[in-house]
């Protein structure tokens, strides 16, 4: 890792049943991925209030990753579909307010997809490095 290279900070909200377990599998399988994520475990992606995503971004997180079960596989039947609507609403609002909504990723990663989890984080880190730091990082009064 080159010195002074921008290292994005990603807040990850992962559902307990699929993506969090997938992340666990990536770890136990010793799959390498960049250490840029800070994971918060939720019982379901549908339990994520957009306030927490907004808070992370307004406070300067470079990206937010929301991970849930694949459509049709939600442990609670439909939580991920509801999460998808909330994320769509959030991204529309962020975009209209001139904030780069592509800093928010919603991805479906199952408990068996440790490789996909590692690849997703790798891709997200690369995409955020491309974008550069969240412009709100040093902003006060928000």
């Amino acid at each position, binding site marked *: 890792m080159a010195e002074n290279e921008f290292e994005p900070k990603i807040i990850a909200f992962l559902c307990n049943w699929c993506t969090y377990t997938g992340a666990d599998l990536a770890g136990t399988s010793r799959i390498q991925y960049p250490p840029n994520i800070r994971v918060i475990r939720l019982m379901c992606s549908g339990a994520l209030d957009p306030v927490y995503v907004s808070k992370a971004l307004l406070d300067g997180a470079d990206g937010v990753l929301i991970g849930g079960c694949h459509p049709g596989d939600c442990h609670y039947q439909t939580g991920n579909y509801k999460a998808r609507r909330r994320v769509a*609403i959030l991204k529309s609002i962020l975009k209209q307010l001139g904030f780069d909504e592509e800093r928010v990723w919603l991805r479906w990663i199952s408990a068996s997809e440790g490789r996909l989890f590692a690849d997703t984080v790798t891709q997200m880190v690369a995409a955020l490095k491309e974008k550069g730091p969240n412009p709100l990082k040093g*902003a*006060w009064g928000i």
Partner: protein
Amino acid sequence: MAEGRSTPHMIRTLIRTDGNPREAINGILRRLLEEGIVDALMVPQRVASGDNVVQTLVRDPARLDGMDPLAPVMPVTAARLVSNITMTGVKERIAVVMRSCEIRALVELVKLQQAKADNLLIVGIDCLGTYEVTDYADLSRQGVDTVAELLAHAAAGDPHPHDGKSFRAACQMCERFVPTAGDLRIGLFGASPDEFLQLEATEALAEKLGLKPEPIPAERERVIAVLTQERIAARDRIFAEFRQRVKNISGLQAYLSTCIRCHNCMVNCPICYCKECIFRTPIFDHESEKYQQWAARKGAIHLPTDTLLFHITRLNHMVTSCVGCGMCDSACPSNLPIAVMFRAIGQEVQALFDYEPGRSLDDPVPVATFREDELEGV
């Protein structure tokens, strides 16, 4: 609105007013109560001092002397009040007299399970515009007959405010001033209310009131279409200005620079129904040391913190159901144009789901439903 689930067949007719449209409307409302068509009537009445109008819940027809359903003022949205008087269930049949925006908000609240419409008979009246409460009080104290002023221009579809005053900002960009839901709709646009009122009523109600179908003049639709286009043009100009001002987060900061974080916009929003708003929970009672950490990280922070977060979160929580009543504007001590923000941003968010708040009880609210095959790219 028992039959309101699917669109009921409506009877159209005219009622002669003999130069006194107010008495004609009051007469119909009084009949609903006197003839036992309903057990109670919720209707705006003048307060004793004469400078304000409040919704009243009336069981005794003798207590209807101050009826003023056309008064151009909306101190509280009636949708909230209907929620109060129906939410835990009532046996009584209640007629409620509401504006178009109030009916739309009520439709949202019913779908959000915050009100019950089963025992309601909704009476909607064409809205000629509303003043801020303080302006209405001011005009009333000066002896201005605000209702007569507006009725004089209803036929031409050009209701405009008293010289030197303006309508509430939300009304100036309101394109849905004619109620499209309700069991009884009283039309004022397109024909002189001094001659007759243009009524639409459900078949059942028309029968009880002895109303015989009569054609409504075609002028009504034309006048409504013209005014709608004018309002849409005004709305789009205002939306464009908003989008110009709020092009980025610092634009939003500037837009909300005088916000004093009183939460009045949330308290007065008919859609913000949460008994315990997240912003009033311990989630935002941060540990004192946290503020030091934030200040250390950013160099400095504004206090109170999270002003933008409050507004952005409220957008996330309720913008899909925002009916544009503008109660947030009216409640803001800093006169912030909150309603514009919600309506402009809501326009795009609602379009994602082809959703029009208040349109129908049959369309579920977007945040309470989903389709399996949608939003693939999110």
